[in-house]
């Protein structure tokens, strides 16, 4: 009987010990995962699903990396400060050259790269890919200084559509024009050829994931002149709030003279 109690105690102690170690391990483990998956600046291959879903769906096999003919895509190694093993690209080193047959997407075995998101009318269409959005820092862009440069405009594979150049009078000289590049967010695929082509020491035009580079107006503002945007009104629902107004508290507030002295 005594032996039985002792062994039972030992069993319970062992279980408690294991649970304790598991809790400690789980804490360190989850903290680490939380940290490594938090890097918001990772540019994904074309057709990548939402980052949150991408992280659970990508099996890190590297088939997209092997399919890429330009060695654009890399798998994150320890030390890259990206979610380990997931594919990414760095446009300043090698941008996405937007192959018309998009070899990296159909090979994905898990659907983390979604073929349907880069398909129009049943055919693969790289121009609807959405890897990110190019943004311009007009402080360091020399075209905004008045120096003639259209490197990004010329490099853009959707020439004249994703980046256009607007002319503006240069008031400083009075006789020259600014040729300012403008990115059109609805067309830009985030391929990064502009970032690669940019002549400044650190690129003045660079690609960021849309989640980072774009704001959100929210539901309070609607473009009344835009039929499509106005459709959002259909989903709007009334929010009613009632505040109980007390006559006494208003009077009390007026009569309260404590703050005066």
């Amino acid at each position: 009987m005594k032996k039985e109690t002792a062994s039972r105690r030992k069993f319970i102690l062992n279980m408690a010990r294991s649970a304790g170690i598991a809790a400690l391990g789980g804490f360190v483990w989850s903290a680490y995962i939380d940290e490594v998956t938090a890097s918001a600046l990772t540019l994904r291959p074309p057709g990548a699903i939402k980052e949150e879903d991408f992280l659970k769906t990508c099996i890190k096999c590297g088939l997209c990396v092997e399919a890429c003919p330009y060695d654009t895509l890399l798998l994150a190694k320890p030390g890259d400060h990206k979610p380990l093993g997931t594919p990414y690209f760095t446009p300043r080193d090698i941008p996405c050259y937007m192959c018309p047959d998009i070899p990296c997407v159909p090979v994905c075995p898990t659907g983390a790269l979604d073929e349907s998101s880069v398909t129009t009318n049943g055919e693969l269409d790289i121009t609807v890919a959405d890897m990110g959005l190019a943004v311009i820092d007009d402080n360091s862009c020399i075209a905004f200084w008045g120096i003639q440069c259209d490197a990004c405009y010329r490099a853009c594979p959707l020439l004249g559509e994703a980046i256009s150049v607007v002319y503006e009078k240069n008031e400083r000289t009075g006789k020259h024009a600014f040729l300012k590049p403008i990115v059109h967010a609805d067309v830009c695929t985030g391929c990064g050829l502009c970032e690669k082509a940019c002549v400044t020491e650190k690129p003045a035009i660079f690609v960021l994931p849309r989640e980072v580079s774009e704001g959100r107006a929210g539901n309070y503002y609607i473009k009344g002149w835009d039929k499509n945007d106005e459709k959002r009104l259909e989903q709007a629902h009334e929010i009613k709030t009632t505040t109980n107004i007390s006559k006494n508290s208003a009077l009390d507030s007026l009569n309260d003279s404590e703050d005066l002295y």
Partner: protein
Amino acid sequence: MRKLWNNYRYLFFRRFTQIGLLVLYFGANAWGWTILMGNLSSSLFLNVVPLSDPYAMLQMLAAGAVLASDLLIGAFIITLFYLLIGGRAFCSWVCPVNIVTDAAALLRRKLGVDRISKRQPATRNMRYWVLALSLILSFAMGVTAFEFISPISMLHRGIIFGLGFGWAAMLIIFLLDLFVLRNGWCGHICPLGGFYSLVGKVSLIRVQHLKENCTACMKCKVVCPESQVLHMIDKESLPVLSGECTNCARCIEVCDDDALEFSIRKLAKNKNIGE
């Protein structure tokens, strides 16, 4: 020479498959070979057959990912394969970390670490805890928890696509196995090994012990990375039925008395009854 072959033949074949697979994967990335593309997480065999890590699939399932058909087929093929040839055959015949931990175990024996202190500070059941924990964390955090820290993936992915600081993980595992815990990584912690142990519970190919030939030299127990599975040595003629056996066949090679051999599960059992 003949003895050398006899004592290392399976080891040679294991290293051949381990390194051969890595060469095929490496060639796919470096020179565009299409025999075996991808890596051990998921690959494409001959441009047609998908192969996927069923444990990674389980984590994806726990994380709440939508599972694609290629992935399901691939994981099914791999599971079926290891149900046939022994669950943890993956560990000793495919996994590249096995080369690192085998080296650590060899050095540990040569240095006589276990003669200094015999006590092992941890239980081999830890891997099942880690396995459960990985699925719980995958579920709670919505990512494939083990895949983000797996030193196995770090190594094989590293060899194929570039290692980065992955060598540090290998060094840690080597030192852990050498000084801290005998068969520490593969035999105690690795949840993938734990997963394949569960698969291996019902798999077909088994090591069979023949007591009448045994001289109780215990060489097999010395080389075995999971020596608890050889509990029947010199006691009973039984097949090794524990899923934790990696089918590495080191015990078969080192046995000079033909007291161990490979057999098929059912046949081995019948033989046993016949006695």
